[in-house]
């Protein structure tokens, strides 16, 4: 039967796959190919404009966005984030004490690879690590408080070039490669990968939305979505992608989400931070 034949194929495939040697992983070559793909496919989009997502490729949407940017709907979230950021913890320390340059203008350096834990640390995770180190409970990675904090930190970093480092460390390279694999793997009942939309179809309409290019997508995070009526975190963004293709979302800041953010952020190196972004 069809099913049996299919599973047999799958088993052969999975056992035939060799383990990756670190030497096979070449982020710099990936970066060049990725950049070339987008700039050649969209010769009319200026490189630094990719960070504005669908607005870089649709004139009608761009006009509405510019109108909204006159007084952007995310201002209240940024203001709330600023207040949270500047409010000391019970021990008197602040978020700023956990970051270089007191946390101002540092968004472009995240995610970072942490050699001690062997894990990718996103800005959201770093904020919760900071809270826990100071005796505070972590914030929910899907909720408005985390979105407001990261929105403020992105706001203070606007225009700074994404600056992601992948150290020559087998675990860092493995995390990068896992993120890349997740990005290109088809999933969900609709059998879509992240790349199916954001590499193969940027600028095209999917359902009712214009798809954002993968290049620079993370630079706009976190985003205020009109359909959410509010600011959402990076995790919320990834989770909504999963469920749109009928995949059960992973838990917020799951290792794979952090790895894929690491991969995409490295691909966006040199492009300006545009977050917090406003999107439909």
């Amino acid at each position, binding site marked *: 039967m069809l099913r049996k034949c299919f599973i047999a194929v799958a088993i052969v495939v999975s056992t035939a796959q060799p383990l990756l040697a670190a030497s096979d992983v070449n982020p710099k070559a990936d970066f060049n190919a990725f950049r070339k793909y987008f700039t050649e496919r969209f010769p009319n989009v200026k490189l*630094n404009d990719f960070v504005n997502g669908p607005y870089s490729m649709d004139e*009608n949407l761009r006009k*509405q966005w510019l109108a909204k940017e*006159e007084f952007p*709907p995310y*201002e209240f979230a*940024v203001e709330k984030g600023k207040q949270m950021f500047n409010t000391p913890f019970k021990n008197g320390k602040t978020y700023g004490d956990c970051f270089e340059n007191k946390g101002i203008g540092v968004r472009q350096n995240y995610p970072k690879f942490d050699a001690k834990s062997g894990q990718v640390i996103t800005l959201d995770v770093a904020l919760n690590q900071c809270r826990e180190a100071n005796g505070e409970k972590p914030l929910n990675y899907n909720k408005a408080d985390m979105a407001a904090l990261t929105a403020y930190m992105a*706001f203070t970093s606007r225009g700074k*070039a994404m600056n992601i480092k992948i150290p020559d460390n087998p675990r860092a390279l493995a995390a990068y490669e896992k993120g890349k694999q997740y990005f290109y793997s088809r999933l969900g009942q609709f059998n879509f990968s992240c790349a199916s939309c954001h590499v193969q179809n940027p600028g095209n309409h999917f359902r009712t939305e214009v798809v954002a290019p993968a290049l620079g997508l993370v630079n706009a995070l976190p985003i205020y979505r009109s359909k959410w009526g509010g600011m959402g975190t990076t995790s919320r963004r990834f989770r909504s992608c999963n469920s749109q293709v009928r995949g059960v979302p992973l838990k917020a800041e799951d290792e794979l989400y952090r790895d894929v953010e690491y991969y995409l952020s490295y691909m966006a190196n040199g492009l300006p931070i545009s977050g917090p972004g406003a999107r*439909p």
Partner: protein
Amino acid sequence: MNEFPDAPDTARRMILKGAVAGGLAGLGFGSFPFPAYAAADAKEWPADAFKQKSEADVLKALYGKTAEASDKISLDAPEIAENGAVVPIAVTSTLPKVTAIAILVLNNPNVLAAAYKIPEGTEALVSNRLKMAKTSKVVAVVESNGKLYSAAKEVKVTVGGCGG
């Protein structure tokens, strides 16, 4: 100063906009609440007009008259709304002595979205963001010299904004 020597204008504009929104970067205007004596008065709100289901009934309830089409009204609205929950719409007019502007969304459950009083010395210009339940004709109505004029435009909505 500029970190992107070949940054396009758009990126720079984005950054400048961030700076202009400086209220939240701590450049505040020394704003503070003031006592209620000068406050907006809910009694002025034209409740009846906001209940009407047609353009004619709204205009009758608001102004007691009908409107004629005018090319001296500019209605700036997107052809396709990115999301019906937030549709930027701007109205300006070169008509003389403008005293009021109203914006109607004909296919919304209640047609009147917003009405503005324009006192002498205030320009015939208003920009706002409205919800649209579905694709609809949007009508801008301007009261000039005691008469009503209107202009209309179709806005396509693929994601409805009833949710708000």
